[in-house]
C-alpha cells in the first residue's frame, strides 16, 4: 500500500482520526490534570463536536479506504459512504447527549476522580462503533466489535458502586466474549469457504455457482449470533435486560441507542454488500438465493418484538422495562430490514433518528428521577406528575412517542416502517407488529398511570433539576413533538443518506 493510498484513506476516515486523536488527548489530559478533572468532559465534547462538524460538512463523501496493495478489486477495508456517515452522526449525537447525561448523573459524579478513564472508554466505544459502521472487512468488523465491547464491558461496571454494576459487567463480558467468539468461529469458516474476509469480495464469491450451502449457512448463523447479540435481537438478547439494569443509566442509554445503531448499521451493510445480487428499479434488494435472509429476519424480528413487549409488561423496574422496550424496538427495526429494500432502509434510518431522541429522553428522565429518589421502581413514580410536572410531562411524551401515537415523532417512525411493510406486501407481519404496538401501550401507559393516576405518596420525591438538565430535556422533547407534526427535515436528511457503497 503506497503512501498516496494511505493519505487518501486517512482523509476518508478523518472523523475516526479526529476521534482517535481526541481519545489520546483525553488520556494525556487525564494524566496532566491530576487534581481538577472538570475540564475533561469539555475536551470530550469538543472532540465529538469536531468530528460531527467534519461529518456533516462531508456528508456526500464516499469511497473505499485502505485498499490492499495486491488486491485485484479496489475493495478496501473501510467503506465510507453517506449511509455510514448517517449512523456515525447518530452515534456522535448520542455521545454528545451522553456527555451531558454523565455530567448530570449522580452515579458518574461519584467517580469523578476517574472521569478521564470514563471518557477514554466512551471514546473507545465511539471509535469501535464508527469502524463497525463503515468496516467492510470481517476482521476489521470483529476487531471494532471487540473495541466497542471491551470498552462497554468496563463502562457497565465502571462505577463499582453497587453489586449490580459488577454483576452487569461480568454477565456482559461473559456473554459478549462467547458471542464474539462464536462469531469469530463463523468468520473463520466463512473465510475458509470463500478465501476472503472482504464483504465486497464475498459478494463476488457468492456469484460463483458452486457453494457449500450448508457450511455457508452454518457460518452465517454463527456470524449472525454475534451481530444479533450486539443489536440484542432475540434469542441473543438475554444479556440486555440484566446489563441495562445493572449499568449506570447514562451507559444504559448509550448502549440502547448508539451501540444498537452501530450493530444495525453493521448488519445492514453486511447484508447489503455481501448478499445483494442486484437492486431492481423499485429499490428492492434481490438477494442471492442461497440464504433466506428475509425469513430469518422476520422470524427473529417477530420473536424479538413479541418477547420484548410481553416481558416488559411484567417489569416493575423502569430501567429494566426500558431495556425490554428497546429489545422490542429492535424487533420493529429488524422488520424494516426484512423488507430488504431501499424503502425499508429509509424506514430504519428514520426510526433510528427518532428512536435516539425518545429513548435517550426517557432514560435521561429516569436517571434524573433515580438520582433524586434512589429508585427506579415504578411504585416510586406514584404521583410524580404532580410533584415534578415538567419531567412528568416530558417522560409522558417520550413514552407516548415510544408507543407510536401521533402527534409524536414515534408515530412517524412507525408510520414509515409500516409504509415499507405494506409496500412490500408484508401485511401479516405488519399486523403482528401493530398488535405488538397495542401490547406495548400497556407498559408505557402503566408508567403514566403511576405518575398521574395515583396520588403522590410519601416516598415520591419532587425532582427539581438544574437548568442544564431542563435544557437537555427540552432539547430532546421539542423535536419529538416537532418531528411528529412536521417530519420533512428528517426525511430530507435520511433521503440524502441512503447510498451504501457496494459493487
Amino acid at each position, binding site marked *: 500500500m503506497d503512501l498516496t493510498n494511505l493519505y487518501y484513506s486517512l482523509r476518508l476516515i478523518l472523523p475516526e482520526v479526529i476521534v482517535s486523536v481526541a481519545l489520546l488527548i483525553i488520556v494525556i489530559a487525564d494524566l496532566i490534570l491530576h487534581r481538577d478533572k472538570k475540564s475533561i468532559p469539555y475536551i470530550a465534547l469538543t472532540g465529538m463536536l469536531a468530528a460531527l462538524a467534519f461529518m456533516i460538512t462531508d456528508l456526500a463523501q464516499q469511497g473505499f479506504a485502505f485498499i490492499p496493495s495486491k488486491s485485484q478489486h479496489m475493495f478496501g477495508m473501510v467503506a465510507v459512504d453517506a449511509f455510514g456517515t448517517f449512523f456515525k452522526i447518530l452515534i456522535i449525537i448520542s455521545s454528545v447527549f451522553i456527555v451531558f447525561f454523565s455530567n448530570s448523573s449522580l452515579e458518574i459524579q461519584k467517580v469523578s476522580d476517574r472521569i478521564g478513564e470514563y471518557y477514554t472508554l466512551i471514546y473507545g466505544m465511539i471509535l469501535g462503533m464508527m469502524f463497525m459502521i463503515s468496516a467492510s472487512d470481517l476482521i476489521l468488523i470483529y476487531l471494532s466489535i471487540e473495541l466497542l465491547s471491551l470498552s462497554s464491558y468496563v463502562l457497565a461496571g465502571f462505577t463499582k458502586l453497587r453489586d449490580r454494576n459488577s454483576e452487569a*459487567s461480568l454477565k456482559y463480558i461473559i456473554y459478549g466474549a462467547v458471542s464474539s467468539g462464536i462469531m469469530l468461529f463463523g468468520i473463520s469458516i466463512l473465510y475458509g469457504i470463500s478465501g476472503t474476509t472482504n464483504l465486497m469480495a464475498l459478494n463476488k464469491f457468492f456469484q460463483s455457482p458452486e457453494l457449500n450451502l450448508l457450511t455457508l449457512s452454518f457460518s452465517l448463523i454463527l456470524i449472525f449470533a454475534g451481530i444479533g447479540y450486539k443489536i440484542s435481537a432475540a434469542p441473543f438478547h438475554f444479556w440486555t435486560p440484566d446489563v441495562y439494569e445493572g449499568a449506570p443509566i447514562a451507559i444504559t442509554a448509550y448502549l440502547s441507542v448508539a451501540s444498537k445503531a452501530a450493530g444495525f448499521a453493521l448488519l445492514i451493510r453486511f447484508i447489503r454488500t455481501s448478499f445483494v445480487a442486484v437492486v431492481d428499479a423499485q429499490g428492492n434488494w434481490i438477494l442471492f438465493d442461497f440464504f433466506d435472509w428475509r425469513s430469518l429476519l422476520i422470524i427473529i424480528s417477530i420473536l424479538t418484538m413479541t418477547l420484548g413487549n410481553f416481558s416488559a409488561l411484567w417489569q416493575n423496574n423502569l430501567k429494566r422495562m426500558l431495556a425490554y422496550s428497546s429489545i422490542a424496538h429492535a424487533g420493529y427495526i429488524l422488520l424494516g430490514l426484512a423488507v430488504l429494500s431501499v424503502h425499508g432502509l429509509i424506514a430504519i434510518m428514520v426510526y433510528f433518528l427518532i428512536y435516539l431522541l425518545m429513548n435517550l429522553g426517557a432514560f435521561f428522565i429516569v436517571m434524573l428521577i433515580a438520582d433524586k429518589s434512589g429508585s427506579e421502581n415504578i411504585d416510586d413514580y406514584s404521583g410524580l406528575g404532580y410533584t415534578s410536572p415538567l419531567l412528568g410531562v416530558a417522560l409522558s411524551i417520550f413514552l407516548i412517542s415510544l408507543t407510536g401515537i401521533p402527534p409524536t415523532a414515534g408515530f412517524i417512525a412507525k408510520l414509515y416502517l409500516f409504509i415499507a411493510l405494506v409496500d412490500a406486501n408484508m401485511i401479516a407481519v405488519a399486523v403482528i407488529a401493530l398488535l405488538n404496538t397495542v401490547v406495548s401501550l400497556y407498559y408505557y401507559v402503566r408508567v403514566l398511570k403511576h405518575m398521574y393516576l395515583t396520588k403522590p405518596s410519601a416516598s415520591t420525591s419532587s425532582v427539581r433539576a438544574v437548568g442544564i438538565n431542563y435544557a437537555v430535556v427540552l432539547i430532546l422533547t421539542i423535536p419529538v413533538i416537532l418531528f411528529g407534526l412536521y417530519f420533512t427535515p428528517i426525511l430530507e436528511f435520511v433521503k440524502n443518506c441512503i447510498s451504501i457503497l457496494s459493487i
Partner: protein
Amino acid sequence: MIEVGLTHFLIVSSALFSFGIYGIITRKNAVMVLMGIELILNAANINFVAFSRYLNLGLSGQVAALFVIILAAAEAAIALAIVLNIYKTFDHVNVDEIEKLKE
C-alpha cells in the same frame, strides 16, 4: 489413517470449540469460564491458520490469527479485572450465583 489434511485440523478446532462452549456453560468459577473462552478463540485461530495454508491464501489468515491472539490478551485482562471486581463485591466468583439481576 489417511494422510493429515485440512479436515484433521478442522476436527481439532471444532472439538476445541465445543470444549470451550461446554466449559463456559458448565463451570461455575468465572476464571474457568474465561479459560473456555480462550479455547474458543484458539479454535477459531486454528481455522484461520489452517485455511490460510491449505487454501493457499497467503498470510491473511495468519495475520487474522495474530490479531485474535492480541485481542484475546486484551480481553483476558479486562475480564480478569472484572472478575477481581466481582470478587471484591461478592466475595466469590461463582458465575451461577451472581444472579441478582433477573426477570
